[in-house]
């Protein structure tokens, strides 16, 4: 069981700690979380010290009971009063210890709150970050800040600090009592102390390394397993079962070997510690006898020494454990503070406003943009004007800049140069929160949250009534399929909507945007292929959704593009063509006309496609 704790406490020591003053500043932040619970914290310190004293005192009291009660068999018989007196004191001390331990738990109860506050603040801070934050950090890393790192810190806050107090205290008190009982015997006993210290440090050093290797190997086992389960279809399709078994065995063998090292170390250390304690006992018996011979110690002293030896090594072992968890907690604090100190790149200006009424007129004015300072420009001097209520289709190759265009419009990023205006107001002068709420944004694959269909539809308008939900679903044509689901609107969609098909997810995402009824709509059309009926439903839903609002659609489907009021063809970060389908398709040598040409395919004439289009749209 000790092993488990060790394994947990030594994680990520490898991260170099930052400069001392930075460390101090960060610790101060941590202290800030403790401050509201200062009373409990002080109580915890007092009780910790009290417990320590009690623990150290009891063998001392027993010594007095034995010696002054004359249990050592000197002539004169047992002095029952003295025994009762000292035992009574010992009982009182034990009771004080009992009460103190109970009070001490109060802090643990509060410390949970402290850690929780920190976790929630961290989460809130992450939520203030713009999307650029998430493109810089892997999701798993961000989540591990919220979980593993907070846990590591929790250990320190919860018991680590008090363990430090308690063990240093215990060490000091025990030594003090030992020396006051018999300084000669104390000196002899302390001979084993340096051996214990060096042994423990060596064990700590090697076992930290061994445990790290074990964890790494275990992670490989888990990763192999996860991947094989995820790719079981491929694995079986290629008849690679035997090879996979062999590889898994190898991965497991590596793990077993790494873990075996920790067992060798424990097999050397823990019996060694016990042996050393027995050496201490032997020293007490042997030297106690020598000192008893000259009348320097009595039996009670021997008994007290032996009792002290029972717990003599605990403080050292626990302190070395504390050191490990302290390093881990500091590394965690460092990482957490790294996040906390990251300011969102896009912030509202001091005089940011919101508009009472949005018409939906959008102006891009010579917008140039790059994601990072040293990165390439992804948009070059883009200018365009969009009338209120227009539907705009953005068309272009992968990486041409359509997504960047949309991200600037929704102000997930700010332009590097130039400006974007909504109804004549620069986006940077508007409140972000308000701005986003004025825009219905439908991401490409219709990301849904775990929860019911209804939960997902009301996501942007939590107070919507059932009628409004049904109306929104109906408007985009989602009501029919939702009605066919097991539990209708209460059907659980699963993690990221996995229990719905891609088309169904899109429709729910449409309904979600519809319910908010935003003046501006920004939509990234899905590329995944769906069957014909679903596609028909999607394009009908889309038509309902864009009606009456300024809409920007990153379009992939011809019906969508043809239905737009204006098409912006983007290539290499520039708007190369703009106009209606009819205008652009007749632009000889034009980009759009070229794309359209390849699209219609080699074996079908333009006319036949046109006629079929007409018939299928009507």
């Amino acid at each position, binding site marked *: 069981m000790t092993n488990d704790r060790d394994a947990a406490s030594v994680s990520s020591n490898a991260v170099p700690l930052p400069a001392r003053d930075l460390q101090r500043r960060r610790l101060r932040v941590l202290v800030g979380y403790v401050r509201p619970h200062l009373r409990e914290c002080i109580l915890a310190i007092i009780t910790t010290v009290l417990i320590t004293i009690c623990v150290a005192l009891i063998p001392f009291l027993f010594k007095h009971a034995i010696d002054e*009660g004359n*249990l050592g*068999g000197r002539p004169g018989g047992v002095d029952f009063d003295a025994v009762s007196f000292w*035992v009574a004191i010992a009982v009182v001390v*034990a009771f004080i*210890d*009992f009460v103190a331990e109970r009070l001490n738990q109060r802090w*643990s109860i509060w410390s949970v*709150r402290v850690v*929780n506050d920190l976790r929630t603040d961290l*989460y*809130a801070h992450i939520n203030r970050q713009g999307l650029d934050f998430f493109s810089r950090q892997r999701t798993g890393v961000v989540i591990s800040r*919220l*979980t593993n790192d907070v846990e590591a810190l929790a250990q320190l806050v919860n018991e680590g600090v008090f363990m430090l107090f308690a063990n240093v205290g215990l060490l000091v008190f025990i030594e003090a009592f030992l020396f006051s009982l018999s300084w000669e015997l104390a000196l002899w006993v302390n001979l084993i102390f340096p051996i214990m210290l060096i042994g423990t440090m060596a064990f700590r050093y090697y076992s930290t390394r061994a445990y790290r290797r074990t964890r790494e190997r275990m992670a490989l*086992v888990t*990763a192999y397993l996860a991947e*094989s389960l995820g*790719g079981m279809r491929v694995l*079986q*399709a*290629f*008849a690679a*079962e035997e090879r996979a*078994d062999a590889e*898994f065995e190898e991965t497991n*063998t590596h793990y*077993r070997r790494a*873990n*075996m090292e920790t*067992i060798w170390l424990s097999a050397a250390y823990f*019996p060694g510690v*016990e042996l050393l304690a027995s050496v201490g*006992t032997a020293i007490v*018996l*042997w030297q106690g006898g020598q000192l*008893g011979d000259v009348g320097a110690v009595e*039996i009670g002293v021997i008994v007290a020494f*032996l009792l002290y030896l029972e717990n003599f090594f605990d403080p050292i072992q626990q302190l070395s454990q504390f050191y490990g968890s302290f390093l881990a907690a500091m590394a965690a604090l460092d990482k957490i503070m790294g996040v906390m100190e990251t300011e969102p790149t896009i912030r509202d200006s001091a005089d940011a406003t919101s508009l009472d009424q949005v018409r939906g007129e959008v102006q891009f004015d010579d917008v140039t943009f790059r994601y990072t300072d040293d*990165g390439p420009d992804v948009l070059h001097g883009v200018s365009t004007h969009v009338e209120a209520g227009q539907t705009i289709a953005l068309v272009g190759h*992968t*990486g041409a800049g*359509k*997504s960047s265009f949309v991200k600037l419009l929704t102000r*997930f990023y700010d332009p590097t140069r130039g400006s974007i205006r909504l109804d004549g107001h620069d986006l940077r002068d508007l409140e972000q929160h308000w701005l*986003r709420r004025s825009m*219905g944004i439908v991401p490409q694959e219709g990301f849904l949250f775990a*929860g019911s269909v209804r939960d997902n539809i009301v*996501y*942007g308008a939590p107070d919507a009534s059932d009628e409004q939900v049904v109306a929104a679903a109906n408007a985009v044509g989602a009501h029919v399929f939702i009605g066919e689901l097991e539990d209708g609107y209460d059907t659980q969609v699963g*993690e990221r909507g996995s229990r719905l098909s891609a088309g169904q997810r899109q429709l729910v995402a449409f309904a979600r945007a519809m319910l908010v009824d935003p003046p501006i709509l920004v939509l990234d059309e899905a*590329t*995944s*292929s769906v069957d014909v009926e679903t596609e*028909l439903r999607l394009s009908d839903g889309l038509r309902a959704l864009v009606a009456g609002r300024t809409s920007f659609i990153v*379009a992939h489907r011809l019906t969508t*593009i043809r239905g737009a009021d204006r098409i912006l063809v983007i290539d290499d970060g520039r708007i190369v063509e703009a106009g209606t389908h009819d205008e652009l398709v007749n632009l000889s040598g034009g980009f759009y006309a070229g*794309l359209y040409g*390849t699209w219609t*395919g080699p074996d*079908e004439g333009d006319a036949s496609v046109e006629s079929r289009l007409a018939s299928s749209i009507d």
Partner: protein
Amino acid sequence: MLTRVSPAPVQQAAPSDGGWKSFRRLLTFFAPFKRQLAVSVIAGVALSVLATRIPHIIGNAVDHFREGQFDATPGDAIDLLQVAALIAVLSASRRIAAGVMSLGMEQSIRERLFSHLTGLGFRFFDKQQTGQLLSRVTSDVSQVRFFLGYGLTYSFMHLTKLFVVPIILLTIDWQLALVVFVMMPIIVFVSVRYSRRSHPVMREAQQKLAHVTAHGEETIVGARVVRSFGQEDREVARFRSLTDDVVEREREVMRIQGTFKPLYTFIPNLTLAALLIVGAQRIDSGAISTGEFVEFFFQVLLITSPLRIIGNLLNRAQRATASSDRLFELLDADDRIPQRDDPLELPPRSGAGSRLQFEDVTFGYRDGRPVIDDLSLEIQPGETIALIGATGCGKTTLGSLVPRFYDPEHGRVLLDGVDLRDLSLHELRRSIGIVDQEPFLFSATIADNLRFGNPDATDDDIRTAIDAAQAGEFVDKLPNGVETVVGERGLTLSGGQRQRLAIARALVVDPRILILDDATASVDSQVEERISSALSDIGGQRTTIVIAHRPSTIALADRVVVMGQGRIEDVGTHDELIARNATYQLVHEQRAARREFLLDEEQEQDDTERTGGLA
């Protein structure tokens, strides 16, 4: 406020019925480690018995001291050292034996589970969640390992002490022993109660914490949606309420701990105090010597910690039993694809390609709901067949029957005239290449991924496959080319890129039958055309089934099969069908009208940055 149900975490320890039965079965895992088990139990018992010698030696020394025989105490010290050295040796051997045993058991259980899993058919995986399977093979296995490797031998050691020490106490002085016998059940009671009360709450706290993590993960992955709808504050509020749940449970744990734990020191302290009082009388009356009293004292200290952890050990035993229930459930899962002991040989590959026949095939995932309904189809050697039809009409299912991911309920499937069930599964699957719409690549280099079905493929084979699948245009741009690591822990590829690599992977196997299940859906139409022509160049001797939506893809097939409701509606060439089949016409026209304009999945710049190119 909206209550969102987070995905339920894996149940940690369901109460197990028939606990004893599965416990006994659990013990069978010891079988290969009898020697280590013997060493660990014998050494454990021996050292526990030997440990009682130390208080005895101390008692002797105290009596020597009391009687003034000071020259005898060095001898006592040496006796003690001898016993201690023996204990140390035993303890080290016990630890090593237990370590070898428990790690070996862990490995063998895990490997057995794994190879069992890889042998299971898809009917099994359809019902399972990967996360749960994963947690069985990792956390349930270590739960069992800890209990079998350590818990059980610890129990032996503690039980030995709890058996031997009271006898010694009785032989020293029965009146003093009575004091201890009063204390023992109280501590056991406290320990068991503590464990009973705190463990369920602790598990609950863990589950609530899993909800917090799930919520955090979801809203971080869906950060864009959260921001799009301006719901940051509400998400923070929800997060807080979820963590409040955790806090409530954790504080309950602390409260329980605060009630019981102080008793762990208080009761033994009281006992020692009572021993002093009673002991003083026994010494005074001459019933025992001071040395015997001191021995008694230290014997009692030997059993306090075994008494304290009885509750914990019981709890571990329960959890290990629950874990083993789940493991056995998995090991007993018998959804294997049946195999003949004496499989027939696959006829030698002919130059023309392989013939594939479906004869009156009926198949359904659930009873009474056939997905494939009495379907017959003969695909000629070297032919390319396109399967079309609405979602859910059974195209993919039909494809899955060929590599025997599932077996038909009625009818049979024949490859070159042999029933698939008469072939060795291994050989069958070796001769079939299947590419899914969302293909899975392993976290390995591109070259390793391509060699997955054929580890002996040469670099030239790899190159040929890459070129045919039109993957060269992006693979060659990578700084490490085919040595680039892809997959979850490597470079993130777009859907179209993954599809192309998956096609190449299937080509490396050089299968008799190639099944492309919407395998080019995310690939640009021009690229797709090039893939198709490359396939037909090298595909003279191969039979190909293409499941597709795009007219251009369908047009390349020799024959088109129009499916509906698990049956074949019509079979014919493109020209035949366009002339006579209404469904085909409609599909063709609507698909043409709605065909994706500009394909290949968006790969946004910041996404590429996020993954940082190579991991």
